[in-house]
């Protein structure tokens, strides 16, 4: 290869210098031993966090009004999940950038109807009770305009829901069967039966917690606990861990975008952040093939620090 054709950011010079003894097996063995001992020491001294999972039972017991409000929103189709869009339903606008809307293109793959899946089906699985059966029949048999009227009345009263003597009180008379259904669902949740009903909808064996997790995420209780643990989005939550433990610190760049405009002011923030990260990731993977970017290390000259002994030998 002539000097003229030599590309310093692509080609490497042929090394004709000295060699030093190198015991690769010894190096590897020592590395494993050191890392093992360091890991064991860190585990002994710092342990690891394990905050117990919350359940619909603990939620509805600790913050019954929040649970009842959320249950009402699931029934009336006004919760975040009810209006989420793909992949759960067609009720929301998928995040997009211009005409690029892959979630919309792919559509519904994990169908979730919050009224049916979170409220009506679990209540229908309960032993027959006259008041509950009547409320279920009333809701299912009502026209959509009637349901809308009940929903409007419920929505206006929702902010004043109270709980006393084991009863959720919705201060309105125009919400039809909604208060009754909410009361039965709250009682079901507080007994622990709703947790089971949501995970066993697809049969006895299950490892899929999509529905109870979506229900939990619609309330403010889960987010409140996360806020106490500095895990929310504005607290760089994705890279944090409960307590004072290091979390996924390597996600710092992903989390960073959520803190600044235009990402943190966009309704398609997630899509924009993912798009940005995909572009940056592609640049990282294909860095050796990108003129300009692949010259950065040569221009930064940090390599002179790394190979300082080599350059010192060269004089």
């Amino acid at each position: 290869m002539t000097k003229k054709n030599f590309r310093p950011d692509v080609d490497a010079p042929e090394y004709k210098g000295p060699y030093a003894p190198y015991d690769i097996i010894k190096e590897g063995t020592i590395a494993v031993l050191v890392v093992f001992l360091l890991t064991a020491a860190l585990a002994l001294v710092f342990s690891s966090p394990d905050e117990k999972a919350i359940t619909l039972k603990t939620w509805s017991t600790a913050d019954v009004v929040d649970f009842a409000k959320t249950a009402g929103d699931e029934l009336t189709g006004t919760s975040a999940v009810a209006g989420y869009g793909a992949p759960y339903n067609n009720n929301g606008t998928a995040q997009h950038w211009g005409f690029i809307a892959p979630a919309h293109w792919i559509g519904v793959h994990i169908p979730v109807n919050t009224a049916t899946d979170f409220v009506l089906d679990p209540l229908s699985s309960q032993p027959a009770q006259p008041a509950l059966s009547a409320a279920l029949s009333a809701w299912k048999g009502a026209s959509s305009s009637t349901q809308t009227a009940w929903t409007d009345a419920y929505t206006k009263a929702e902010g004043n829901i109270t709980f006393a003597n084991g009863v959720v009180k919705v201060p309105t008379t125009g919400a039809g069967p909604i208060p009754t259904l909410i009361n039965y669902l709250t009682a079901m949740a507080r007994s622990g039966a709703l947790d089971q009903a949501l995970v066993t909808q697809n049969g006895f064996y299950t490892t899929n917690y999509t529905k109870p997790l979506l229900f939990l995420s619609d309330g403010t209780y889960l987010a409140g606990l996360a806020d106490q643990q500095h895990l929310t989005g504005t607290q760089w939550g994705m890279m944090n861990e409960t307590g004072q433990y290091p979390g996924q610190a390597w996600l710092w760049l992903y989390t960073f975008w959520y803190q600044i405009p235009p990402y943190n002011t966009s309704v398609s923030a997630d899509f924009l952040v993912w798009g940005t990260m995909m572009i940056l990731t592609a640049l990282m993977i294909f860095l050796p093939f990108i003129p300009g970017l692949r010259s950065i290390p040569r221009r930064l000259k940090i390599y002179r620090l790394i190979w300082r002994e080599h350059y010192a030998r060269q004089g």
Partner: protein
Amino acid sequence: MSTTEIERQWTSRIRRSVVAKLPPDKMLPDTQPAYVASWIYVFGVTTMAALMVVIVTGCILALDGPQWWHSSSLGHFINSMHLWSVEIFFFAMVVHLWGKFSMAAWRGGRSLTWVTGAVTFLASILAGFTGYVSQTNFDSQWISTQAKDGINSTGGGAFFNVLNLGQMLMWHIVLLPLAAIVLTILHVVMVRIKGVVPPFEDSKEVAA
């Protein structure tokens, strides 16, 4: 069977090709260029050592199922080792990556070595993430319900459901470790075949 026939066997051809590209003294060298004399070179082998501890502790956790560590002090200790080895793994890997970037370690026909390393980094991030959402505790509840919005926005959530514990656990303990191990082996084999990238040579830089 004739000698020619033996030489034409698939097995013989592959053996000759492997030995030609990666002879024993390259696979297990006893010397190395004198320029390989910086602390930065420690982080590659540290990453692999941490990966071994991650895998061993993960295998021990697998013995008694995904919820064993919540109720057993030994299980919790192994989980702690799993967590800290992951932290060491990523720390070492990131330092290794920046070190190799600073050396422009893709030079001299080493582009694929860089690419496999970068993809291993991505597979590891995904492996770490699926581990976090498979903890079956509050942390996994919160992380999964938050992360769903990101992956759903890309359309990927339709196929990679972070709220599905069974799916995430399988990715975490089977598919992604397999990917990380295979990619790491490929990466190391490429390093051994091509050797450690030589330093920039000032005269050639000027000439270019």
